[in-house]
C-alpha cells in the first residue's frame, strides 16, 4: 500500500513537470502561428502583428504561461487557433477513436504475439519456431504506413473484406469493430513481433530452470508444466514489454490514423504541429503524456500482482 502511494506521488510530480515542459517546448519550435495562418494570403507585416495581438501571442512567455496555468487548473486548455473552438471539446470529441485503435492494436499484439512466442519456445528449432521468428522479424521491420497501405490494397480492394476509410457508424458496434480491424492489425503487428520474441526467450529461459525439471520428474503433464508453472513465471518480462510497447503503440497511432483516414489524437497532433496551433498541440500532448504516465503506473502496480515475490517495501 505504501508503495502504491509513493508511486502515486511520483506520478503527480511527473505530470507537473510534463505540463511545464510541454508548454515551453511548443514555444521553442521555430515558426509563428500568425504568419502560418496568413501565409496563403500574402499578408504584410502589419496584418501578421495584428493577428498575433488578437491571439494573445504578443504577451511575454511567462505571462502566457501563468495565464495558461490558471485556465488549465479550471479545466480550460484554451481555444484552438485554427477552429476557434475549445481545445477540451475538440479532444473530447475524438480521444476515444485513438483509445479504440490503441486497444485494438494491443489486442492484436497480444493475441498474435503471445501464442507465437509460446509456440516458438515449445517447439524450439522446429519449422514452427522458424516461421514465427521470421514473421516476427518482418513484423518489426515493416513500417506501419507501408503495411497499412498493403493491407488496404489486399484486404480492402482486392478481397473487399474490409472498408478502406472511416470509423463506422457509432450506433452499430459491429460496424465500428469492422472499421477498426485493419488499422488495429497494422498497428498491432509490430507489437506482436516484439511480444513474440520476448515471450520466446523468456519462456526458454524458464524451461531451463530446475523447478521445471522437478515438475517433469514429479510426473506432471507437459501441459501442466508449460501452461501452469512456466507460463506464470515467464509472464513478468512480457508484462514489462507490453507496458513499454504502449508508448510505441500510441506513437504509431499517428501514422495509422493518417493512412486509414481515421480521426483521432494522432491526426489532430500532426495537423496542429504543422499549423503551430499551440493550444491544440499542448492539449493533445498533455493527454498523450497523461495516458503514458498512467499506464506506467498501472504496469508498476501490476508487477506485484503478477509476481508476488516482488514487493517494494
Amino acid at each position, binding site marked *: 500500500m505504501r508503495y502504491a502511494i509513493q508511486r502515486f506521488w511520483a506520478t503527480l510530480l511527473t505530470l507537473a513537470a510534463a505540463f511545464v515542459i510541454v508548454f515551453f517546448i511548443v514555444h521553442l519550435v*521555430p515558426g509563428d502561428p500568425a504568419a*502560418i495562418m496568413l501565409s496563403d494570403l500574402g*499578408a504584410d507585416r502589419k496584418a501578421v502583428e495584428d*493577428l498575433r495581438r*488578437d491571439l494573445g501571442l504578443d504577451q511575454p512567455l511567462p505571462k502566457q504561461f501563468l495565464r495558461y496555468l490558471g485556465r488549465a487548473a479550471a479545466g480550460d486548455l484554451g481555444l484552438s487557433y485554427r477552429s*476557434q473552438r475549445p481545445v477540451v471539446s475538440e479532444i473530447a470529441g475524438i480521444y476515444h477513436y485513438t483509445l479504440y485503435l490503441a486497444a485494438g492494436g494491443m489486442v492484436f499484439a497480444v493475441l498474435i504475439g503471445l501464442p507465437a512466442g509460446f509456440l516458438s519456445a*515449445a517447439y524450439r528449432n522446429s519449422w514452427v519456431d522458424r516461421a514465427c521468428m521470421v514473421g516476427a522479424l518482418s513484423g518489426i521491420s515493416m513500417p506501419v504506413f507501408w503495411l497499412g497501405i498493403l493491407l488496404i490494397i489486399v484486404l480492402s480492394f482486392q478481397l*473487399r473484406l474490409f472498408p478502406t476509410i*472511416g470509423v463506422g457508424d457509432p450506433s452499430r458496434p459491429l460496424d465500428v469493430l469492422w472499421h477498426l*480491424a485493419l488499422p488495429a492489425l497494422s498497428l498491432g503487428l509490430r507489437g506482436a513481433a516484439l511480444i513474440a520474441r520476448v515471450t520466446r526467450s523468456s519462456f526458454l529461459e524458464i524451461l531451463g530452470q530446475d523447478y521445471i525439471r522437478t515438475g517433469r520428474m514429479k510426473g506432471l503433464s507437459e501441459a501442466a508444466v508449460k501452461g501452469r508453472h512456466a507460463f506464470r513465471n515467464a509472464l513478468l518480462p512480457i508484462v514489462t514489454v507490453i507496458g513499454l510497447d504502449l508508448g510505441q503503440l500510441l506513437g504509431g497511432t499517428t501514422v495509422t490514423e493518417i493512412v486509414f483516414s481515421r480521426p483521432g489524437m494522432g491526426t489532430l497532433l500532426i495537423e496542429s504541429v504543422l499549423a503551430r496551433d499551440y493550444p491544440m498541440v499542448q492539449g493533445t500532448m498533455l493527454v498523450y503524456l497523461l495516458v503514458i504516465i498512467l499506464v506506467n503506473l498501472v504496469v508498476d502496480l501490476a508487477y506485484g500482482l503478477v509476481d508476488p515475490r516482488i514487493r517494494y517495501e
Partner: protein
Amino acid sequence: MRREKKFLALLAWTAVGLWSVLGALPLPSHAAPSGEQVIRSRTDDDLITLDPAHVGKPSDHMHAMNIYSGLVRLKAGSTGVEPDLATRWEVSPDGRAYTFYLRRGAKWHKGYGEVTAKDVKYTLDRIRDPATKSRFRGLLQPLQKIEVVDDHTIRLTLKDPYPSFLGAVLAFRPGWIVNERAIKEKGAKYGQDPIGSGPFMFEKWVRGSEVVLVRNPNTWEKVHIQRVVNKVIRNDTVAKLAIERGDLDVATLLEGASIQEVKKNQKLNILATPGYATHFLHFNLRKKPFDDVRVRRAILHATDREAIAKHVFFGNATPRHNLMNPHVFGYEELYNKADYDPAKARKLLAEAGFAGGLDADVNVMPAAQWPQVAAVLQEQWRQVGIRAKISVPERAIYDRKWRAGQFDILFTRITRVDPDQYIHQYFFSKNQPFPNTSGYAGADGLLLKGRHTVDEAKRKELIQAAARKIFVEDLAGFAIVNVNYVVAMQPYVKNNAPTFQDSFPWRQVWLEK
C-alpha cells in the same frame, strides 16, 4: 507428443474461429447506381471549421463555398466576379463607394429568415472585430465605412479606389455572409453546424468519414445535385483506388504517381486544367551580383522549364513566365520557349564579369515538389557555371529566412485570385521588407495606378504593363511552371469545373446515370 498436437490443434481452431467471426461481418453496402443526384467526392482532410471568419484550408473551403453566398462570387473556372446575393451594384464616380442591391426574398437555411443588408454589415463588422480573431481582419483594411441604406441596399466605402476588393475580398471567405442569430445561438458549435444562404445546406459531419451537404430547397438557382457526400480520404493512393473501385464519383488527385496511374484508366474521365498555383522564383536585388540584370537574365537563359514540366511533374504542369495564370484578369502570356539558351547565359555571365561562374544561395520552399524542381534547376544552372547552394529548410525556418531576406534567390509558390495580389504583394516597394523581400521597386508607378483604376480596360493595360516591366524588362523574378489541377471523374459526372482553392461549384453539376 500427442498433447503437443492437442495444443497446436486448439490454437488452430481458435484462429479459425476468430477468422470466421471477422468474415461473418457484413460486407460494405454499395449505393446502387440510380437516377438519384447524389455525388460522392473526396476531401483530403477532416472538417476543421466552416465559420467563414476562420476557414483556413482548401478542404474546408470546398464545403463552405457551396454553403454560403456573398454579395458577389467568382465565376466558375475563372477569377472574374458575378452577381450572387447582390443582383447588381453601382460604383461612385470616384471609385470609392460601392452600392450593392440585394436579391429580394433570399432566405437563410433552416428557417433563419430573410437575408438583409444588416446581415452584410454584421458579417464585415464581425471580421473587423479583434475579438473574433479572424485571420482575414487585415484583408478588410481598405474598407472605411459600411452603411445600411435600407433592408436591401448596402453601401461600402473604401479608403481608396480598389476594384480588386470585389474578387479578392468580397468573393472570398471574409465576404461570405453569416447570420448573427445563428452565430450567437450556436456559439462554439457554429463552425460545425453553419447556416448560410447558398445553394447547399450543411446536413451532417461524421467525424473522420464524411461531410454531407443537401440541396437548399429555397435556393434561387437551378440546382440538380440533391446531396453531396464528401468522403475524407487523406492518402492519395487510397483515393485513387477508391475512384477506380467506384466508391467515389469525383476525386482530386494531388500526387504525380497516382495521377500517372489514374490516367491509364480508360473508364474514368480525367480533367486536367491549369491550377491557380504557380511556382516562381525571385531574386534578392539587395545582394550582389543579383542587382545586375545581366546575371538575372543569365539565370533565365540557363533554365529549361519544359524539362521541369515534363520530368518533375510528368507533364501535369505548364511552363510559365508570368506569375499570373490564364484564369486571372489581366494575364498575358510572357513565356518564350527560346528563353532557354545556355550559350547566351554563358555570354551574359562573362559580360557581367563572371566567366568563371558564380555562387548563389537559394532558399527553397519545402513543399509542392519544390525540392525536386530545385535539384533539377541546380543541375541546369551548373551547366553554365552557376553554383547554386540549395537549402530546403523546415517550413518555419524557410519563412524566417524569407522574411529576413537571407537568400540570393527565393523559390516559392503563389495561389491567388486577383492580379493585384499576385504582383503587388511581392514587387511593390512599400511592401518591403515583407512580403516584398526582393528589394524591387521598379514598377511602383504602374502598380499603384493599376491598383486604383476602376475602368477595366485601362486597369488591364496597366496590369499587363507592370507585369512586362517586372518579369521581362527588369526580370526581378520569373515563374517556372503552373501546376495542373487533376480531377478523376466517373463519365456520368457532367459540367464540373474546379474553381479557386480546388473547390467544386456543385450548383452547376449533374449526373447522367
